[in-house]
């Protein structure tokens, strides 16, 4: 059987126009039109020769950093913008969900919005009428059906928007980061619905930064980097290679972050990071042990007031611990400094588990974040016998270890 979606050598070029803004005005055309040579034009390939094919019934995740070309790819697949080169053959009805609630209008009632949005997404009027009760039920807005949308809470609007989309019935469904919103209860409901859709033989292409969602929904994923298809394979393998693509190991526990910087800011930011265990670089840690992280930074212009923070996340990218020196009430410097070392110390690491942890770092002067490195560092935690009774706690339940625990019969 032929694949349901065949993508061959797709490239997309955008022309960056440094003089004109996001849209041209006639004046620009008249003033600059005759001397195009002076206009600084730069070709930017958002996608560069991407090819892949998807079989019917597969759920494929698309992973990549911001600007890797994920959204461009989805836009081309949804026919919103044409490719510059290449060709896509699809053998099924494509519905794309690049945003929930597209076309929602605040003046229209919930009922009216369901019909308009549903029809935009490609549903027939009859189809919407048939599924209407289910949609309303899923969103839980029965009592507000004839209220204008502008009186809805943002949560209600979102639930309504997702509910309409959830009842789409295409052969190929393209979804962009729609789960990044909404309360966790509803997110779970949506994930469940999407799982149902994929099990019923539909083909799904799913872009997300939510690694947990990708893991549960997609068996296979591919990784986009700078417009190129970097790798394709099992989702968990791809996720790990994506998350570790930022770091460059010198020795275990020492991370070179300089290559992460954009050209413009090469001279400022965090250069290296070292994780220390008993004063020795290491990337393996144990619960309740002393945890030290050292960050070498550089800023040739001099930085007046450093603000530095970090977030420790679990392997599903869920943040667990986050702290910065403002929260701690610490001023790091009052004179401009051009380089130095920041040291972060935890007397007792309050984490428990047996998998990978990631750290995001934020470096700036309070007004601006100069340097944000997501998944800058990763380390492994080894489960330990905390209560010294020969038993290991369930690492799935005790991710953030609370310190002293008492459980007694009085």
């Amino acid at each position, binding site marked *: *059987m*032929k694949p*349901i979606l065949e993508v061959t050598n797709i490239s997309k070029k*955008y022309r960056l126009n440094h003089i004109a803004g996001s*849209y*041209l*005005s*006639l*004046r620009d*055309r008249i003033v600059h039109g005759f001397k195009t040579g002076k206009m600084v034009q730069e070709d930017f390939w958002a996608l560069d020769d991407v090819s892949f094919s998807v079989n*019917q*019934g597969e759920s494929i995740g698309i992973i990549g950093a911001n600007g890797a070309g994920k959204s461009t790819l989805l*836009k*081309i*697949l*949804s*026919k*919103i*913008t*044409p*490719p*510059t*080169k*290449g*060709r*896509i*053959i*699809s*053998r*099924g*009805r*494509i519905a*794309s969900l*690049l*945003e929930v609630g*597209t*076309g929602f*209008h605040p*003046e*229209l009632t919930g009922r*009216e919005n369901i*019909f*308009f949005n549903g*029809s*935009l*997404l*490609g549903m*027939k*009027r009859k189809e919407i009428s048939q599924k209407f009760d289910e949609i309303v039920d899923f969103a839980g807005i029965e009592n507000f059906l004839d209220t*204008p949308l502008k009186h809805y809470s943002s949560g209600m609007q979102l639930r309504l928007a997702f509910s309409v989309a959830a009842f789409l019935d295409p*052969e190929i469904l393209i979804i962009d980061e729609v789960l990044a919103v909404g309360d966790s209860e509803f997110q779970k409901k949506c994930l469940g619905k999407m799982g149902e859709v994929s*099990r*019923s*033989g539909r083909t799904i292409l799913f872009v997300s930064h939510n690694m947990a969602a990708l893991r549960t929904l997609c068996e296979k994923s591919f990784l986009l980097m700078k417009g190129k298809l970097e790798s394709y394979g099992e989702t968990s393998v791809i996720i790990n290679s994506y998350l570790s693509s930022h770091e460059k190991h010198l020795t275990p526990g020492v991370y070179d972050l300089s290559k992460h910087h954009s050209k413009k800011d090469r001279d400022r930011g965090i250069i290296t990071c070292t994780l220390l265990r008993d004063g020795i670089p290491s990337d393996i840690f144990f619960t309740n042990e002393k945890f030290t992280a050292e960050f070498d930074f550089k800023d040739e212009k001099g930085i007046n007031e450093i603000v530095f923070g970090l977030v420790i996340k679990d392997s599903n990218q869920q943040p667990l611990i986050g702290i910065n020196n403002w929260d701690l009430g610490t001023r790091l410097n009052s004179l401009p400094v051009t380089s130095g070392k920041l040291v972060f110390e935890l007397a007792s690491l309050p984490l428990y588990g047996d998998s990978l942890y990631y750290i995001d770092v934020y470096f700036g002067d309070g007004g601006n974040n100069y340097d944000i490195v997501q998944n800058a560092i990763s380390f492994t935690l080894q489960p330990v016998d905390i209560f010294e009774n020969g038993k290991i706690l369930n690492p799935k339940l005790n991710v953030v270890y609370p310190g002293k625990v008492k459980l007694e019969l009085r």
Partner: protein
Amino acid sequence: MWGFNLPLYNDMTDNIEDIIDADNSKLFDWRELWHYKELFYFFTWRDIKIKYKQTILGFLWAILQPLILMVIFTLFFGQALKVPSQSLPYPVFVFSGLLLWNTFSSGLTNAANSMVNNSQIIKKIYFPRLIIPVSSILVALFDFLMAFVLFIPILIYYSQPVNLNVIWCWPLALLLTIIATLGPGCLLASLNVKYRDFRYIIPFVVQILFFITPVIYPVSLLDHPSLQYILALSPMYAAIELFRFPLSELPINLEFLIASLVSAISFLIGGLIYFKKTEHFFADFA
């Protein structure tokens, strides 16, 4: 339990083959437009709903607007300036002109701004883009129908006879209005996406066309034949003359009629082609 679903999809995969590439040579995919026919309805329906939401008078505004204009023009042009009106009572003359003119002017303005106003949708969902300007013209057509309801009592009030030519003249006039609106509407809509200057140019264009189209005065008022010829180039000239023909029974200048028709049809073809050529990149510019 999911198995029985699959054969259905297997069949379908062999039937439909949709190709996405950089090719933009095909003018219009009529089959696709037909497939999306309901969306014409939904866009029109939405815009009509929004237009009259939170108004006390609601649809009455569609009737009141031309009525008030008719009164004003009758007072200033009919009574004070004594503008001739092709043997018709001036209010009948001006209202018949305004009926079609308002359809044209609001249709053109709506269509010209439609792509920019719907840019959020364009950037996120694909459908044939032509649906947007066409629907905004259909909204103007709805207002026409509302105002037309008032036209009948006006005719009765002024005991204005209407001859049998009305059967073909009025539908044809309405069709010509749509053609005259669609061409420039599509052209301005796509120009507006790329150059926002057109947002400011459109009101002037409409205003100028208003004065060179025989809405509030007959062409015969201008005695210079070449001036009359220029007026006949207005795409709306033919529509309005045809619409008045069953009322006034004055012979129509065929040469002028053809000039106006040619103008309207060239705008239609030019507008549609330009729209189609630029349509692909709306999402990148909007």
